[in-house]
């Protein structure tokens, strides 16, 4: 099976780099609307994330639901226009 790209990233908003205001971890973010968010992490960002480190989960047995500091950083970036949010 060939891994194929998601056309929505080409036709709609792209993934954009963003640094977390808390730990500086750099991820890629996309917002298709105010309430939709995609976040692509890499290994470096995962090891930089403080909340992730503090969580006892994320070792495969549980699920790390997401970082609240990163969530806030994304919301702020969207409000400031750093992360583009398509008009609905």
């Amino acid at each position, binding site marked *: 099976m060939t891994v*194929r790209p998601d056309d*929505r990233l080409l036709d*709609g908003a792209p993934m954009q780099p963003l640094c977390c205001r808390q730990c500086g971890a750099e991820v890629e973010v996309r917002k298709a609307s105010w309430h939709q968010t*995609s976040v692509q992490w890499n290994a470096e960002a*995962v090891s930089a994330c403080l909340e992730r480190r503090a969580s006892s989960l994320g070792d495969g047995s549980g*699920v790390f639901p997401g970082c609240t500091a990163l969530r806030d950083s994304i919301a702020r970036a969207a409000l400031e226009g750093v992360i583009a949010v398509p008009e609905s």
Partner: protein
Amino acid sequence: MMVRRAVARASRPSRPMGLDGPAGSRTSYLGELRTRVLKGWVDVTAVEAGNSGVRRIEAEAVPTRYARGWHCLGLSAGFKDGRPHTVSAFGQKLVVFQSGSGAINVLDAYCRHMGADLSKGTIKGEEIACPFHDWRWGGDGRCKKIPYARRVPLRARTAAWTTMEQDGLLFVWNDPEGNPPPPEVTIPRIEGATRDDWTEWVWKEIVVETNCREVVDNIVDMAHFFYVHFSFPTYFKNIFEGHVATQIMKGNGRPDARRPAKAGEPQMLGNTSVASYHGPSFMIDDLTYHYDDMDLKSVLVNAHYPIDGNSFMLHSGIIVQQSDKLSKDAAEAMAQKLGDFILRGFDQDVQIWKHKTRIDNPLLCEEDGPVYQLRRWYEQFYVDVADVKPEMVERFEFELDTTRPVEVWKQEVEDNLARRAAEGRPA
């Protein structure tokens, strides 16, 4: 009849169209269509539509290898009846047998001597004895004894699978490269499965005649939960990381799909579900139903193993926790009820799968989940460990915007209720 068969072929070509070069394939595709039209197989409107900007469905053949990972074969108790069991999995026939010391073993079912089926044989002590000439095979895959021979010949070894028994379930490790399971790739313990205040497993199995990718796709498919399963998602998020793929979903009840609670009965308000695939085939769902007077906690297992490229065995298991509001008997009754409910859910999926085509290039709207990223994650199980790319295992999060779906679905539910009321039928 002829026409129907031919049209079905046109929409589901044996050779995927559009994969062998853009220009050439298009010509041959149209040529093929023209032939079909001339033979009266395809109606003409389909051909006209084929001329301009039509999105073509693409699908590679199903993979020729089977996913690397732990696969659940079902309740382990079922294999402990002193008899060998036949299991068709990974394109092979396997024998599952419990040796005298208690270990459950999985071997290739065909005896290396003359090819007889070991699963039709007999368990003798630690070994499975072939029904043809009584050759004795151990759980490690080695021939231990041939009663009528002085010596076991060289190379008397068959394929053996690593097994694991946990929480009342039997797992086999499949790896086309033949490596043992790495320590970090585990199936987490299901606490309730061994606790007294939870019910026993209510376990169901069905054979599904399609490639198993279809069932895995469900984990990102929010909208089908409304249209196919009559539930009402209001929150939906996916997280993929390492060998784990998660779906977090919250939902409301569907008053147009379920009988409303009678006076005095607890009313179901909604549910919260956190479901993770641990590897390619075993999903554990922490599923809580919220009632007006209590939370009902359950764990749902949704697991499968491939029989071959075009069929798989689908398992569901459920356990329910007792509480001060839910007695032991009530919890057991609830587990039975939920088990039947889940089986109906499988059947709803099967009705779709039976008639759909395999599609590698689904056309998505922004309110669909991350199908492509899920398949990127899923691909890690179909390549050698050395070929697993970082992008297949790196953490990816996708939170869906449910604003529009919820708005539309609320309206649809109200319309359904209003129509029924107008027809004088009960809600």
